[in-house]
């Protein structure tokens, strides 16, 4: 599932100061991290900004990667940390904007990237959405998702089970609606 089989090796070389290894890692990991950010109701520009912020953090704390350990969850754990920080900042900013809107009345709406995936995952909780995105969209293993989200494999399995239950219900309702509207037409 991984785009590169030797991420761990590249990471070890990156820790030794190898620029070629660093650029290869950037090329291999960035598209995945970018998609990870996009899956969280984010515009492309915001996702690109967060990607750069993530790489700066990765670079700063590259010594915390332990040679021999899986590298992919390490990248995602840092990306997740950056995303959570961004989310908290945006919540605070949104609260400020709401205050401003109340005062000015009629501010222009923010452009949002509404993808099919976001709509599909909308009924799920934030943690369920995150786990589903990593597991089913990014193709990570249960163990990798558990490491990236700082939780146990059992907890990830439970979240997936609950998310699928909810998705099954939502999809069944959607299918029923489509069927009824087809019948009426």
């Amino acid at each position: 599932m991984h785009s590169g089989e030797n991420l761990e090796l590249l990471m070890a070389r990156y820790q030794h100061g190898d620029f070629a290894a660093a650029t290869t890692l950037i090329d291999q990991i960035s598209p995945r991290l970018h998609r990870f950010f996009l899956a969280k109701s984010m515009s492309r520009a915001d996702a690109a900004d967060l990607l750069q912020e993530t790489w700066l953090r990765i670079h700063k704390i590259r010594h915390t990667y332990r040679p021999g350990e899986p590298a992919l969850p390490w990248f995602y754990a840092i990306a997740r940390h950056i995303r959570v920080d961004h989310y908290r900042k945006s919540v605070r900013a949104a609260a400020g904007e709401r205050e401003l809107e109340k005062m000015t009345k009629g501010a222009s709406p923010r452009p949002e990237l509404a993808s099919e995936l976001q709509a599909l995952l909308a009924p799920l909780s934030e943690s369920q959405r995150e786990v589903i995105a990593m597991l089913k969209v990014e193709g990570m293993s249960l163990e990798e998702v558990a490491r990236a989200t700082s939780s146990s494999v059992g907890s990830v399995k439970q979240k997936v089970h609950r998310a699928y239950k909810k998705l099954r219900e939502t999809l069944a309702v959607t299918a029923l609606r489509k069927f009824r509207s087809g019948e009426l037409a």
Partner: protein
Amino acid sequence: MKDREIDDILKKAAPASLDLDPLVLERIGVSIKSSLGPVRPLPPVWLMTAGLILVCAAVSLAGAARMGFFGFARMSLLERALVFPALGLLGCLAAVSFVHQMIPASRRRVSPGALLALGSAALLAVFAYLFRDYHTKDFVSAGIACLRTGLVHAIPAGLLCWLVLRRGFAVNAVSAGLIAGTLGGLAGVGMLELHCPNFEAAHILVWHTAVVPVSAALGAFVGWALRFRAR
């Protein structure tokens, strides 16, 4: 609807955003190039764990040496054989958990909250089994003095542990603070068991054990404050 069908729907709905602007990648490469140099990875987990245990033991022993080993002197052999190994074991578990909190994507078996609950419950069980004097004298005043003494030792122990692991990176500062506080709290309880000669069951069960959750709560608060400041 089967799981496989949901998998297919999810895959089809996923954003195909692998076409990332090459300029963004180039910019990232340039931004890290100037400061690219060899770095020394973190030491092995066992070494960092041993460092934390040493710090906690040193704080407990130094505190008891300053205030007197009255509790240890009054304890029976059975009490010594159960209380200190239990504290040591819980300290090891907390230290391992703290080390894992400071390494991103490290494998976690027990959450810091669960470890705090487990540690407090285990201490209560050991104390309830060993100390059967159900009289109470100066319950609040003596208790608050012990809680204060425990925290006075727990806080520096927690801070020193944080200092030992300062090269790490906590992806969740609140959890890291909670477990650092738990570890410091165990050091505080260790100091109290060495020092306090009050073996009333209620005193030990309430005021000695309380050092762990109170210290953990302080640690979590510090973690939250640090995260808030970093924003």
